[in-house]
């Protein structure tokens, strides 16, 4: 493995100030794949903050990327509010059943107590441990599943999307309730000293229209981010799938960084909103990171960097979404090493050189 010259915190601090760094920041978005680093099964993470922290810290130490994210799946908050989640032996959890079957039951829903409900306390414990172990050298963040997506887990995606058209007030009520849940969860995360990252996959234009995004997702994300900002922290906002028609709205939420899916064109994003907001993305987590070769990873990273490195507000190399669990370590190393070889400042010459030469000696 090639060695970095700076710690991640040194790098991010310098990069934010526009000063010289050793390489572009790079975040391969390792999720449950961290279990593979310590030889654990994913089901062992359940309610086990110490193990989640150990896995994420060891994964960071192995690959040396630029954030430690305490994350297993998107359902942690919805579960703490009554949604039923299935935990397979060694695969990522999935939603079995929303918290309520019908909007008439909405009165049953309460924002969770982050110190008591579901797995939330275990996640807070994991954040404390990770901060303690590596917080001096790398940022540690907790993950918040945004109001619209959380609402979809509380009542089911089909029901929520139909409510938007048939009973918009009810849909707003669910989003409002989810925002309240998000706010107490974000507060608890921020109180540990961690930062926050936001995901709103169901608000994607692959599912709902830009107009629906502006009505049912945007105002709630904006209020969430304004709270995070009031605590002195910035937020990255990730939305999967198509987003090109809502980029400006995403900027207007107050997010400091937009994390974009591999289906979108980073050059177009840079052109449209790169002067207002930092961008991160968007190597294909499945076709390239999971199924591709080391060389495919290298080409894809060079391609992303070529399109985005000169974005005025900066660029962080990353995968277009969380990595699938079984992404080969070699491909994660290849992503990091490509970024190391490209170095800083990024030049056309350097990109051409990295493109031509194999990634050997890494």
């Amino acid at each position, binding site marked *: 493995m090639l060695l970095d010259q700076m710690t991640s915190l040194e790098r991010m601090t310098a990069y934010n100030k526009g000063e010289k760094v050793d390489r572009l920041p790079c975040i391969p978005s390792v999720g449950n794949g961290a279990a593979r680093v310590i030889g654990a099964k994913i089901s062992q993470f359940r309610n086990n903050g110490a193990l989640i922290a150990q896995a994420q810290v060891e994964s960071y130490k192995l690959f040396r990327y630029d954030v430690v994210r305490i994350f297993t799946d998107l359902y942690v908050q919805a579960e703490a509010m009554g949604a039923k989640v299935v935990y397979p032996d060694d695969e990522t959890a999935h939603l079995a059943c929303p918290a309520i079957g019908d909007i008439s039951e909405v009165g049953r829903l309460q924002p969770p107590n982050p110190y008591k409900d579901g797995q939330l306390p275990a996640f807070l414990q994991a954040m404390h441990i990770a901060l303690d172990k590596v917080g001096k050298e790398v940022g540690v963040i907790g993950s918040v599943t945004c109001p619209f997506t959380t609402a979809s887990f509380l009542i089911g995606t*089909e029901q929520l999307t139909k409510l938007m*058209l048939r009973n918009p007030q009810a849909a707003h009520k669910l989003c409002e309730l989810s925002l309240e849940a998000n706010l107490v969860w974000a507060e608890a995360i921020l109180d540990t000293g961690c930062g926050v990252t936001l995901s709103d996959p169901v608000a994607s234009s692959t599912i709902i*229209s830009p107009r629906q995004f502006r009505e049912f997702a945007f105002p709630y994300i904006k209020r969430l981010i304004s709270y995070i900002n009031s605590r002195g922290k910035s937020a990255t906002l990730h939305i999967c799938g198509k987003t090109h028609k809502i980029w400006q709205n995403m900027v207007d939420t107050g997010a400091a960084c937009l994390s974009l899916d591999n289906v979108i064109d980073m050059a177009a994003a840079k052109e449209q909103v790169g002067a207002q907001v930092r961008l991160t993305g968007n190597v294909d*987590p*499945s076709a390239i990171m999971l199924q591709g070769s080391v060389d495919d990873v290298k080409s894809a990273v060079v391609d992303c960097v070529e399109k985005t490195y000169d974005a005025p507000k900066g660029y962080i190399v990353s995968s277009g979404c969380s990595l699938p669990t079984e992404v080969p370590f070699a491909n994660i190393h290849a992503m990091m090493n490509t970024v190391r070889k490209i170095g800083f400042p990024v030049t056309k010459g350097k990109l051409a050189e990295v493109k031509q030469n194999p990634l050997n000696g890494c």
Partner: protein
Amino acid sequence: MVVLEKDTYFQQLSDAVVEMDEERTASVAAELVEKGIDAFEAIEQGLSQGMARAGKLYEDEEYFIPELLLCADAMYTGLDVLKPHLKSRGKSKGKIVIGVVEGDTHDIGKNIVKMMLETAGYQLIDLGRDVPPQRFVTVAQTEKAQMIAAATLMSTTMNGMARIISLLTEAGLRDGVKVIIGGGPVSPAFAKKIGADAYAANAIDAIRVAKELI
């Protein structure tokens, strides 16, 4: 004159579906049955036609998933009214077994593909979500289906798709059963790699692919 009247009803039915209007779809359907208009034609030229238009609006990004779901609700409401009056069943264009592979419980995409294929004239056997590979194969065999359509949103479950194909081959059924796959993490390249017959990018694409293969 009768032809004209019939066409007006079909147009109204189609419009009611596109406009997501369940009540109107039901009332137009009931009215045309009363007039003695053929229920099968009404399904084909009214309801299916409406869903095809909704599908086009979806492709053009005028409609999104929420609108498609409500068009489908209207379409199924109309179908409930018309079905008891079907004199002759139209010939099904083919039988397709559909499901979300084991380990994944996202089924909104699958439901839309199912509904679009149904309205395009195929007979669908829906296995639901979290379906083990063997079950796709067993049902395809017992139902003599011409195609399996497998979906996933989770990369963790992609191997289940490859398993469907190897199980089909082991059972000696591969030649008679086409396999199409779709969903977020899969791609045309992945379809090729596991030996699937095709990849479908969305519900409309699935109809195109089904027409080609069956």
